């Protein structure tokens, strides 16, 4: 098993959160993505939506202050921001399918250079865990993926083509790993920003497909 290089989980979440623009409606998936709501992005007003129909939730509730009947998509007891609203599941996915989500942030096993990604089923598995991922992937205006850059066997998760069953085709707009921030271009991955302490060659060595580098490559501020 490889040593984890580059960014921490919270640093990955922080960098993605800084992509959110004022007024956006954002859905955060289970795991690292939920950590985006901890990030201070200043004055920007973001409405967080969760699959179970909560529109406008805030940070995780303090111990002893939980409302046990109020959870986010990950089952954590969250709080509500002023102006929150609750709807039922069909209406909640109406928000999603109707194209009202500005960005969804999800974990994944693999992302391809054409913007496909896989996050519901492992190789050889019968069934899987889809949850709301396929709805979100097909319908959100922007799909941001956060994942560790390599597998435990040090194999790339950014690949030419997914060999795992995909969640949606050609939808990923941004990929955040512990190595850097990438965009699938159709013919490769463009490295927009790199994690501190890593070189482009470090990244290229463990990236599938073609890697291109943005003009004036920035180092991610942590």
């Amino acid at each position, binding site marked *: 098993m490889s040593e984890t290089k580059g960014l921490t989980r919270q640093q990955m979440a922080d960098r993605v959160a800084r992509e959110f623009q004022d007024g956006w409606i954002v859905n955060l998936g289970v795991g690292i993505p939920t950590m985006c709501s901890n990030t201070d992005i200043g004055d920007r007003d973001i409405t967080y939506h969760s699959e179970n129909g909560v529109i406008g939730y805030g940070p995780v509730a303090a111990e002893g202050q939980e409302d*046990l009947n109020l*959870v986010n998509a990950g089952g954590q007891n969250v709080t509500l921001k002023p102006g929150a609203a609750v709807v*039922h*599941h069909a209406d909640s996915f109406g928000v999603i399918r109707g194209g009202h989500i500005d960005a969804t942030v999800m974990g994944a096993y693999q992302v391809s250079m054409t913007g496909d990604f896989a996050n519901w089923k492992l190789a050889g598995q*019968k069934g899987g865990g889809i949850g709301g991922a396929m709805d979100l992937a097909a319908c959100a205006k922007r799909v941001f993926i956060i994942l560790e850059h390599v597998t435990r066997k040090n194999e790339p998760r950014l690949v030419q083509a997914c060999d795992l069953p995909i969640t949606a085709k050609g939808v990923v707009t941004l990929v955040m790993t512990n190595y850097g921030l990438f965009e699938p271009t159709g013919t490769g991955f463009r490295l927009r920003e790199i994690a501190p302490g890593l070189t482009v060659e470090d990244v290229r060595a463990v990236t599938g497909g073609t890697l291109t580098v943005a003009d004036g490559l920035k180092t991610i501020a942590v």
Partner: protein
Amino acid sequence: MTQRSKVVANFAAAVADVPDGATIAFGGFAMPGTPFNLIKALMEQGAKRLTLVANTTGGAQQPRMPDIGMLVENGQVAKVICAFTAATRPTDVLPFTKYYESGEVDAELVPQGTLAERMRAAGAGVPAFYTPTAVGTELAKGRETRVINGREYLLEYALPLDYAFIRARTADVLGNLRFHRSQRNFNPVMATAARCTIAEIDDPIQPAGSIDPDDVHTAGIYVHRLVQVPPSPEGIWPAKREARAR
């Protein structure tokens, strides 16, 4: 005019008529809104060859609450229609997974939004609809799609239910319901799709008309039986702790 109460004395009475082979949906997303007491009663009632509909099969949390996985372990289930036959995190193993992998129980894996919409459609008299969800994936293989305004969509059919087992915070005796926060989730949708909806209720059930008509989440016409959840430990997970964190 008489207005009859839909309140049933206890959970056993509420589920007594569930026949073998019935299709039953269970509300709930994580803990909130899950009809734990009705699930427990159904285990005791013993109906077999059931088709169960729910977001997950349960068993992800400890301590374990009555869940669909327990009905499976109890030998009552032929098939599950759900959005997870396995956990999202591959290292978590759901109790249900081994029954599915061994072929003892069948499963139909449905994206969560499609699952909700299929029940909404059944309740609303829409026999089929198109959705962009799952197009181009393994789930769409061999299935009918259609291009509308240049985009490809998958045809999905309504999912009607025999029973919906749900949980709400507040009810009047006519079955008008209110849910607290994310307790709402699938519950109102399932209620519309079922021939018989049975609701377990947290708070003391109120006289007809106690809920302002503008504030009803699920209209009483969709609810057929109500059971008051008794105080713990007899009643499971009243979950009344609430922050005033606004």
